[in-house]
């Protein structure tokens, strides 16, 4: 269970997160949606401790995580733009992160198999295409079998085949009772994967709750229509 209370963050004069409070239920998939620049990535980075909040608190499993680092053992993170040390080979990168995490048992092999990354293992990170980097990021996020998985626009650079493979994996993880948090601009993807929905505009939460309720409330068939309506309302 992740609880966020009164989270605020400013970058200079720009308010990125404005008093965000919410609960992310365990064992469920939560989708975060919102227009570009609404604070989705900042919210995730704050949860990871990459960005330090000006005010507010975040609890993971009942413990405050501000200024702590050990809780990240429970989290696997796949960033939006996967940037990795350029000179490292893929295999070296995996070994390196394994050493940092101090993990012995990993599902590295299966994940490499799943994404068909074997031919890429000896290549340097800088020679990889954007999509392959995304796959490497997905393997890194999932190989340690963490309780909480965070994906920031995971399928943005993936081809349809890899995208389907990725979604299958996420569904598998969901069935194993993992807490999943993902952002995406592809509404059908959120609809497919998420149970809960958080809608952020300009650093404020506009909707937070089960996805079905929102679709019913907005009297729409699909999530896309419901979110589009909500964005119009927010802009008005």
């Amino acid at each position, binding site marked *: 269970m992740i609880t966020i209370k009164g989270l605020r963050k400013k*970058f200079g004069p720009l308010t990125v997160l404005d008093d965000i409070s919410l609960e992310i239920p365990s064992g469920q998939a939560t989708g975060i949606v919102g227009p570009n620049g609404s604070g989705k990535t900042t919210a995730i*980075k704050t949860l*990871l*401790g*990459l*960005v*330090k909040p000006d005010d507010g608190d975040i609890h993971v499993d009942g413990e405050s995580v501000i200024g702590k*680092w*050990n*809780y*990240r*053992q429970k*989290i696997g*993170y796949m*960033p939006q733009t996967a*940037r*990795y*040390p*350029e*000179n*490292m080979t893929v295999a070296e990168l995996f070994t*390196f*992160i394994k*050493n*940092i*995490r*101090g993990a012995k048992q990993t599902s590295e092999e299966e994940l490499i198999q799943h994404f068909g990354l074997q031919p890429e293992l000896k290549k340097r990170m800088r020679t990889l295409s954007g999509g392959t980097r995304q796959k490497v990021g997905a393997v890194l996020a999932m190989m340690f079998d963490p309780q909480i998985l965070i994906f920031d626009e995971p399928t943005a650079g993936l081809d349809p085949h890899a995208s389907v493979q990725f979604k299958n994996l996420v569904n598998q993880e969901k069935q194993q009772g993992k807490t999943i948090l993902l952002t995406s601009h592809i509404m059908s993807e959120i609809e497919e994967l998420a149970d809960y929905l958080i809608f952020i505009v300009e650093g404020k939460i506009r909707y937070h709750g089960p996805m079905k309720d929102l679709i019913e409330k907005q009297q729409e068939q699909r999530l896309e229509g419901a979110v589009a309506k909500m964005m119009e309302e927010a802009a008005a």
Partner: protein
Amino acid sequence: MKAMTILKYQWKDLFRGKWIIGYGLIYLLMADAMIRFGGTGTKAMLSISNIMLLLIPLVGMIYGALYLYQSREFTELLLAQPLDRPTLFWGLFGGLAAPLALAYTAGIGIPMLYTGMILTANLQSIFVILVLGNVLTLLFTGLGFWLGLKFFNDRIKGLGFALVSWLFLAVIYDGLVLLAIFLLGDYPIEEPMLGMAMLNPIDLARITVLLEFDISALMGYTGAVFNRFFGSMLGITVASGCLALWLGIPLWRGKSLFNEKDF
């Protein structure tokens, strides 16, 4: 443990970049040439230390800042892992400063070994040059790190400040000191001069070299003042204290900047 893992990786990455090997080779060629032409005595060691006093601060500061910019992805990747920021900071710093110091030590030391200089020359002098070089490497790499963190999102500014700071400390500062002596020569200015030398780590190192080789007489009147002060126990203590402050403050500031930073 984790700091060592980071260090090991960076070590590998630096040597793969070949840049650091080139840096060591510069010292090797230079030391070799100086010993070949200047003999194995004081002259060669003085020439070596003169080049060291210019080159180490420049490379330390520029590469310290540059390295931080280059390893941004690496930093972001690691910060999402269960790892505390101080460990990562010291891992990054050690991963750069230690290879730089090693390149210097090897570059200077190897020619001294194969020319047999180590047998004939004054061991204490060799030791002073090696230690000074290592301290300066740590000091200026720390300063570069601090500048890099201060201007993390503005590389041009960070590198510009590094370059200007080097120019100021290594060249302009001396000019200012000379100007002060020239203008105020009629007044008792020995003590303010001592103070000014203390404020510049390159000057401190230079004075140490001059005293070690006992050529402070070449500096005339001020040389005598320095000799009297730095030669004493108090002088050595104050000078080492100043160098320690110069080493500690940028690293301390850098570390707290790193701890508070949003990535």
